[in-house]
């Protein structure tokens, strides 16, 4: 039978546990070689990371590869992590950079982006790679918006996902992008304008 514990003791233990579970504390433990601390960090942030990666790539396997690479890079660069930034912000920044690098390095993706950027509307009518049942379930407008988003250049796509899908505030977006808050607002505005220009010819007729 365990001895009775005072409320102060329980509270201090809870604080101690909270401190241990704090991201910065976990990072500090992981730096010292405690891999279980890094496992805790992974469990805590993997959903956020995967959601953002999936929005960036729109493919499950690509998103998982991206998240895996991001956590490996984070593990290798734990000594560079600074406590002033949140671990989530730091992780999303890594994913954003990786996604940008992949988009730039992949010729196939670049070719696709160029084809779509030239104004060809084939990508709107070509739904052969999609599940027909899924096509029936989704309305045409939603498909147009999602494909228009996927066809955006990666820097526009990143800020729209962060702001309008992940619904992060501008301060965090600025931290992820490594720019000022005003710069983040300007980037988001430009990206929305670019998305609007792509989507408007396709769904604008529904408004008439």
């Amino acid at each position: 039978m365990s001895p009775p514990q005072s409320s102060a003791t329980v509270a201090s233990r809870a604080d101690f546990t909270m401190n241990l579970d704090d991201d910065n504390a976990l990072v500090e433990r992981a730096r010292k070689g405690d891999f279980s601390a890094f496992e805790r960090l992974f469990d805590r942030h993997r959903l956020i990371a995967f959601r953002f990666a999936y929005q960036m790539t729109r493919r499950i396997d690509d998103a998982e590869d991206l998240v895996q690479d991001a956590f490996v890079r984070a593990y290798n660069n734990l000594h560079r992590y600074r406590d002033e930034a949140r671990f989530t912000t730091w992780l999303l920044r890594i994913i954003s950079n990786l996604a940008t690098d992949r988009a730039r390095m992949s010729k196939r993706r670049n070719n696709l982006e160029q084809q779509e950027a030239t104004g060809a509307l084939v990508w709107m009518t070509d739904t052969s790679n999609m599940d027909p049942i899924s096509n029936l379930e989704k309305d045409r407008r939603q498909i147009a918006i999602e494909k228009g988003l996927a066809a955006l250049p990666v820097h526009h796509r990143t800020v729209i996902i962060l702001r309008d899908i992940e619904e992060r505030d501008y301060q965090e977006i600025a931290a992820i992008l490594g720019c000022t808050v005003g710069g983040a607002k300007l980037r988001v505005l430009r990206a929305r304008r670019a998305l609007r220009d792509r989507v408007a010819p396709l769904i604008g007729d529904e408004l008439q």
Partner: protein
Amino acid sequence: MKHKHQDSIIRLAFGEHDSETEKRLLEAGVGDADSQKEFELVSLIREGLKKAGHDTPQCQMSIERVRDAILNQNIRETRNSATFWSWASVGVAACAFLYVLSNNRSSLPETRLVSNTEKTNFLQETPTMSDKQPDTQVVSAWQPSVLSGANVSAHKPKETTRKVADRPSLPAKWNDITSSIVKRTAETVARVATRSDATRNAHAVPFALSDASASIQNELFDSAVTGEQGEPIILINTDTDTDTGAQVATEVQSFENIPIGG
């Protein structure tokens, strides 16, 4: 529609105007019909983006995958390190081979490295059979001049002497011998040509050439036997010395009274 107005509508549709501006714009009805249509379009896009965030599939990733990736990365780094050192050793071996090869090349005979021009010069400077060819050509080139008259002696020897003197690195002794031979030959030919009239020239030239040939032979013999002036001549006998077992050698200052021949 101007960008500024369009941006204002976009901000309004995404709810990023401050409350006063938003209230004012909504009360004013956004603007004209185009602006209203633009507002509806951007609002649709905003709703679509929100919906797009809801269809994210379930994350199936596990920490084992990341751990394996980290471990494989370490293995890959080790492999990369081994590959680096193996390639580095190959590079060092290649450099050493090139160094040895370059050293060997520098110690090779010079004839392997000279160009065609240098080779030609070298052959001209070397007293070989090919080197005597211009002299022969000069002698045979005199023949028509001899047939034409006596002014040959004034030109041809000078030309021949100039040609011989142009050779830069011919041994001085060889130059002297050659110039002497050519000069004597030219004098003999000129003397015969002067004495002979036009009808006898055809017979006189072979005699002149034979005289010149004899003169050349004598000159070569003298130079070969005498050697440099003042140098002693060493005669090697067939008898052997009882002390050393080697052939007996005799040193003389002059070649006179010494029989030569078999």
